[in-house]
């Protein structure tokens, strides 16, 4: 997904001399072609995220379209106050590309997890938050983000994400994508959990439950219209995310449902607000926190009883 995004961005970078790409010294081999195409518009800022965001602000104030790259906690947490003031408050044309969503960097440990980024980014004024679920969406988003004017946070995984679409999806910011329409039960999923959601649905279908799956790739602005449309036609709704369950997609959807008087079942599935002391890769950690397809399937069955 990461390679696909930057391959698409590379073309745009080549043809638009207003695009600058900054990294805080991460992305081994990822930017080699950027350096070759135009070394004047690519900067390895050094291991200095706060400075990178300030520089991005100064570039954007000078009319540039700027991309900033790092691993999620370093990008959006280390430099959060710079993002808040220098980017969001100024409503600048800066795209923040965070790699390593959720437990992507599993064995590298907690310092590298991306579990609270949506909470932070969706709290900021002017910030758009988008999370592609597969490489085809990442590619579409590279082009969309290039044309988009304003601050945007994009959470990427890293490598090996399976495809959720057989052809190029109709990807629009703020417009959820239906990946199969069922009855009674609906699952709103985001990012890598969209694919997990597909696996869960194929299991549920075998026991006679036929849920609707919605890819909520845009966390902000949230597609309230789709949420309410689904709420009116379904009795049980689940949210599915690899993020702290109390301040991500689920709680955003909960707000819309509650404000609009939804009376059905609603359950948020994500990472509990509790740190476990386990060491393992991403799939292992998803098991620890109940986010494997089997566990989610069991959880949903139990909730529907």
């Amino acid at each position: 997904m990461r390679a696909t995004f930057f391959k698409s961005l590379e073309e745009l970078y080549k043809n638009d001399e207003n695009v600058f790409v900054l990294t805080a010294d991460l992305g081994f081999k990822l930017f080699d072609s950027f350096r070759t195409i135009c070394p004047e518009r690519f900067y390895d800022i050094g291991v200095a995220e706060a400075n990178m965001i300030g520089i991005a602000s100064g570039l954007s104030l000078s009319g540039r379209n700027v991309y900033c790259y790092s691993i999620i906690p370093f990008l959006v947490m280390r430099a959060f106050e710079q993002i808040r003031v220098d980017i969001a408050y100024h409503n600048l044309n800066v795209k923040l590309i965070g790699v390593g969503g959720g437990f992507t960097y599993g064995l590298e440990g907690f310092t590298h997890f991306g579990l609270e980024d949506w909470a932070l980014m969706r709290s900021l004024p002017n910030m758009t938050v988008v999370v592609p679920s597969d490489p085809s969406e990442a590619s579409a988003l590279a082009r969309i983000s290039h044309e988009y004017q304003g601050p945007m946070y994009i959470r990427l995984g890293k490598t090996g994400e399976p495809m959720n679409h057989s052809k190029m999806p109709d990807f629009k910011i703020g417009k959820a994508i239906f990946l199969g329409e069922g009855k009674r039960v609906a699952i709103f999923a985001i990012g890598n959990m969209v694919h997990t959601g597909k696996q869960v649905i194929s299991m549920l279908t075998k026991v006679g439950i036929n849920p609707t799956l919605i890819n909520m790739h845009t966390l902000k602005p949230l597609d309230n219209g789709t949420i309410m449309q689904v709420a009116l036609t379904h009795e049980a709704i689940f949210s599915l995310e690899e993020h702290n369950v109390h301040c991500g997609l689920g709680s955003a959807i909960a707000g819309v449902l509650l404000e609009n008087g939804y009376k059905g079942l609603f359950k948020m599935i994500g990472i509990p607000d509790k740190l476990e002391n386990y060491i393992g890769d991403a799939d292992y950690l998803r098991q620890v926190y109940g986010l494997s397809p089997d566990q989610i399937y069991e959880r949903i069955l139990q909730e529907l009883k």
Partner: protein
Amino acid sequence: MKDVDITENYKTIARSIRKSVLNLIYQTKSPHIGPSFSIVEILVALYFNHLNTSPENSSDPDRDRFILSKGHACAALYAVLAERGFFNNSDLDGFAKNSGTLEQHPKIDLSRGIEVSTGSLGHGLSIGAGMAISGKVDNRQYKVYALLSDGELNEGSVWEAIMFAGHHKLNNLVALVDCNKIQALGYTKDIIDLEPLEEKWKSFGWHVQAIDGHDFLQILNSLEQLSSELPNVIILHTVKGKGVSFMENQLLWHYRAPDDEEYQLALEELLQ
């Protein structure tokens, strides 16, 4: 002789700016008169002599940029921008008031000469570095000036920017450090001693000048003697609260706004 005449003129403007700052602070009971008074001379020199920026070209891509990284001292910037014609007089009347025009930290407004919103310390030099890079790519001739406080140098992000600008030889970036020796809770030498400050900047690859930040001749000379090879820093040795005897070198006046009696005393001194 001519130089003396010029500085006499600037001294007159500086007195007028200090009066304006005093009025802004007194009328609104705002903080930060001390750190506003310490930067009056550098602002007057920049806006009335040095910067290629004016109310008419305030969004020209080739204009010089000025960033008040120590945004809390904005009363001095507002007074200078008003005197220089960037503001209407009514803009100053709306300082620090409900439904007003100007906050107690600068908010971006190119039409009024404010390049970027500041107020959180440690941001301005990085933003300036970004503006400097952008200008270099297009071979634009503008320079970027960022005015920092000495206390602000405690922020690690400032040193990230210093390293970066030194490494990339951003010769179109000028840092101005208002060394008034007092930060929010005391003397800088007691909180985080910055000395040897000149050597620090030098060792990061900057061209360093250190001057009396209230002496117009020294300020104008230093601005004329910028390195064309390296990023430039001018360390301005200043006095917090400069211009009003009982405010000078007093931590209290980082915060305090004058009462009626203090206002009259200060005004009398500034009118002398």
